[in-house]
């Protein structure tokens, strides 16, 4: 038997069967109280925390999935827009090429007309000038002839 008065163990206190009823009595109380705490406080609380966390994580995953879908959609739209813009660009390039050719042709035409006009104008003026000079030559020659006549006659008279 473990002595309780002289504070020294004889053999193993664990094998002192006289303490067993006491130990088991307190252990039973301890177990029941602890089980009640586990059952009514710890488990509901932990499950609550866990469920909350699960809910939020699931919510976040669902939201992420939704956002991903939306991103995919937007990407597709961007791709489409890009395709459209490309084809538009091609069209514009083609049509503008034609336009430029047309414009060049018309410009060439215009310049031709303008040059021919200028040429004819110049010819007209040249003709005018030539006509003017013919008259002047006639006048001069007339004057000259009369001067010569005067001189010839005048010398004879004089």
């Amino acid at each position: 038997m473990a002595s309780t008065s002289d504070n020294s163990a004889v053999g193993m206190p664990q094998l002192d069967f006289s303490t067993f009823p006491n130990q088991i009595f307190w252990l039973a109380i301890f177990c029941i109280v602890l089980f009640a705490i586990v059952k009514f406080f710890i488990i509901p609380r932990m499950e609550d925390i866990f469920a909350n966390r699960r809910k939020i994580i699931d919510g976040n995953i669902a939201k992420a999935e939704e956002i991903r879908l939306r991103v995919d959609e937007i990407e597709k739209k961007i791709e489409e827009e890009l395709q459209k813009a490309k084809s538009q660009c091609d069209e514009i390039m083609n049509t503008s090429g034609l336009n430029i050719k047309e414009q060049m042709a018309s410009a060439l035409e215009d310049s031709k007309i303008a040059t021919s006009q200028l040429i004819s104008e110049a010819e007209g003026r040249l003709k005018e000038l030539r006509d003017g000079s013919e008259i002047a030559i006639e006048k001069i020659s007339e004057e000259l002839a009369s001067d010569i006549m005067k001189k010839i006659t005048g010398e004879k008279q004089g």
Partner: protein
Amino acid sequence: MEKQSAFNIHPMDQFIIDPILMGESLEWYSFTNQALWMLISLACISFVFIYGSRKHQLVPGRLQSVAELMYFFIRDMIIDIAGQEGLRYFPYIFTLFILILFGNVLGLLPYSFTYTSHIAITGFLALSVFITVTAIGFIKNGFGFLSLFWISSAPLALRPILLIIEVISYFVRPVSHSIRLAGNMMAGHAVIKVFAGFAGALGLGAVAPIFAITAVYGLEMLVVVIQAYVFTILTCVYLNDALHPGH
């Protein structure tokens, strides 16, 4: 034993059950040092699990993450070993686990009392596990539970021999279950106490035993947790045998 020797070592004194209230003699209802440490461990459990997680934090704080770690550790262990059906018995197994774990860990404090070092305590726990698990086995499977002992995957000639071995090993379970825990607790504490006695007797040379105490203490910190884990995992294994006896 009473005579003072050169080495005044009483390594087993720490296990004496002492009535600390209500008189000197030990009656079955006396409040003892053991009951006091059960109460303290109850307080610590409440502190960690109820006070620590009072805020129901989404991102746990220090105490709450400790509580969650233990809780989900045991939960996952039951699912791994005994399957989803085992979760029905989670409250019992978790109670067992924290009872042993806190008893072991608090027992490492100087001047504390380790209630899990007593055969009466661990024997009671192991016997309740044994009886409960056997009852569950028979209730769930009827006499099919006995197929646990009749190993149908073995050759027919070997089965009777295996039957004897299996039956013996089944009934030895509560013994090994309880003695493993109590023995580990007692041995570690006794060793520390013996070294402490050396340290008291050696004067300056006490450096060596104190170093040894430090080392053993570190080892014990590992052992107390592992023993709580072992006790719980064996309970899960026994529970699995009861739920699925057909190997």
